[in-house]
């Protein structure tokens, strides 16, 4: 048995959209099978995972809240992945953005400081994430160190940094020894868009990021530069685009957006620093970016879809006693299905029954 691949020359946009949808359905079927193997009803699980969150206004808000950080991070990653650069350390950039931004919140705690606190926090969040992202980029451009491994290693370092801070110098002295910082002042809290709602301004940032990115990738020379760098790196050099500058730029952008996601989440959603401030948004965003086919609008949709699995996962844990790890497993399956669907768009794949050889 062997696989035969014939390149397709006429892959249309419709086919690509269809492929994403097909990948999603396939992933659901596989996950349903796994749930059935675990002795639960896949139908009940589908109800809890998908239908219930979508029919409840509170869950719909929660959906946007969860989608926000993933959309922001995935938008940033799309810059890297388009240029064929592999930043897989967004989780760390998210954490450092949150830490650096929170530093202002903690410094001004109880000072009744002015309106400038929040913008400064956001700015420092972006800078923190960008700087953390620039470390692997710099190591790559200056010394040729593989960015995949370094960006990933820095995630652990970032998480340990956060852990040290909330257990050590930044621990709330009145917090009964819990490893957490003080609760942020109102001046340091990202407000909800609607008075009584849960959706904070991070969602607006995500929407802006989507729109700006759509323009940059579709209409500007910089966008073309990324596409060219990813599709034909030698042609990019021939066009006069420095690959080093491109590398630094995309890591700064994706790190910055991850940092913005981090500080938005902490100041708009959690309200304080804790040892864990992310259920793996930085890693899940990789799936989101691929599922959205590195297209800004696609990523927006994909982030909402994946957010659904997070919310569904939480309620399934309570209602069906399905472990939370199922959500992560599902995301892995989903990413695999997306990659396989990608291949099926590029190649006509045929299973030939012939032993030996290729």
């Amino acid at each position, binding site marked *: 048995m*062997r*696989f*035969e*691949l014939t*390149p397709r020359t006429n892959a249309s946009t419709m086919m690509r959209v269809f492929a994403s949808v097909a990948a999603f359905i396939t992933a659901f079927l596989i996950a349903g099978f*796994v749930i059935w193997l*675990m002795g639960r009803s896949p139908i009940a699980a589908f109800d809890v995972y998908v239908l219930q969150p979508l029919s409840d206004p509170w869950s719909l808000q929660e959906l946007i809240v969860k989608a926000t950080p993933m959309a922001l991070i995935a938008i940033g990653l799309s810059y890297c992945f388009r240029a064929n650069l*592999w930043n*897989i350390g967004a989780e760390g950039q998210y954490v450092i953005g949150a830490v650096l931004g929170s530093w202002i919140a903690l410094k001004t705690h109880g000072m009744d400081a002015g309106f400038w606190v929040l913008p400064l926090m956001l700015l420092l969040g972006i800078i923190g994430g960008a700087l953390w992202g620039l470390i692997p980029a710099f*190591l790559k451009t200056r*010394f*040729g*160190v*593989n960015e*995949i*491994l*370094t960006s*990933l*290693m*820095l995630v*652990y*370092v970032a998480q*340990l*940094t956060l*852990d*040290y801070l909330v*257990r*050590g110098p930044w621990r709330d002295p009145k917090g009964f020894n819990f490893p957490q910082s003080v609760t942020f002042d109102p001046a340091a809290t990202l407000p909800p868009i609607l008075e009584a709602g849960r959706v904070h301004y991070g969602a607006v940032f995500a929407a802006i990021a989507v729109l700006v990115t759509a323009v940059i990738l579709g209409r500007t020379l910089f966008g073309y530069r990324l596409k060219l760098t990813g599709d034909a790196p030698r042609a990019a050099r021939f066009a006069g685009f420095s690959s080093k500058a491109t590398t630094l730029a995309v890591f700064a952008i994706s790190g910055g957006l991850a940092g913005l996601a981090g500080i938005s989440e902490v100041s708009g959603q959690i309200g304080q620093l804790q040892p864990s401030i992310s259920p793996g948004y930085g*890693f899940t965003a*990789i*799936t989101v970016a*691929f599922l959205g086919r590195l297209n800004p609008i696609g990523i927006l949709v994909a982030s909402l879809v994946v957010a659904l699995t997070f919310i569904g996962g939480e309620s399934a844990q309570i209602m069906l006693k399905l*472990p*939370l*790890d*199922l*959500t*992560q*497993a*599902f*995301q*892995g*399956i989903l*990413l*695999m299905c997306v*990659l*396989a669907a*990608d*291949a*099926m768009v*590029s*190649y006509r*794949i045929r299973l030939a029954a012939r032993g*030996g*050889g*290729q």
Partner: protein
Amino acid sequence: MTTFEAILLTIVTASTPLLIAALGELVTERSGVLNLGVEGMMAMGAACSFAAAVTFDSTLLGVAAGMMAGALMAALFALLVLGFAANQTGSGLALTILGLGLSGLIGAPFVGARRDPIAPVDIPGLSDIPVVGRLFFEQDLFVYASLALTILVAIYLVKTRSGLTLRSIGENHTSANALGLPVRQVRFWAILFGGACAGLAGAYLALVYTRFWSPGMTAGRGWIALALVVFAAWRPAWVLVGAYIFGAATVLQLHAQAAQFGVPSQVLSAVPYLATIIALLLLSIRHGRAIGAPGSLGVPFVPDR
């Protein structure tokens, strides 16, 4: 046993899973395939081996289950990158995410269970030599197996016919295909071997190193194994050296934490990760770009027929 001897012994224990996983990945990469899913395969190996060992009360079955789990995960990866010519980086990441999630599911019922230590195998006579005797000749079977594996992989790659074929395919799959070498078949087995090794490394973690299961217990060891392959410039002997250096770093930072030097424990915990970055950096500074990397590493192969 003196404290010093005890430390040395734990270094061997900490290094062994890194060595086994990195050797497997080395063979996969020498065939031209980059499998970033080591962490996921290792986690699956750990969960499945522990589950099987507890269920059947058999270390042997546990080990077998761990290797099977790693190989099965690798087969999934092979389907994607060989069957569908999918992007290897993305597929490897997907494998990691899936492995971490799935291992959590499989391991969940076994949280809290413990296994008894495995009796070391004493090589009579040799183990009586002071210090080195106990260090090298009174270890568990895995340690001997990992050292044997290093030698076997080295011999396989350099001395055997099949090893030559594998290296050729990794070097240039277009030429290999033109000569009629079975590119995808060889890669399939190399990927499977890498998966089985990662699974075995996971089994070692769960059955010997910690003797319990907890989610996320691989703690980045799979990624360190990947870095070791780069660090070793794709040579088995250097993987051995690298694994022991990293094992030592891990153990020493643990002892430093216990000794309470006044350095925050998190700083010490970060040592293995920082050491990986620094090792990769030093290597790049000395040699320029990834020296020794197989020519076709990470490039999807689509046979033209």
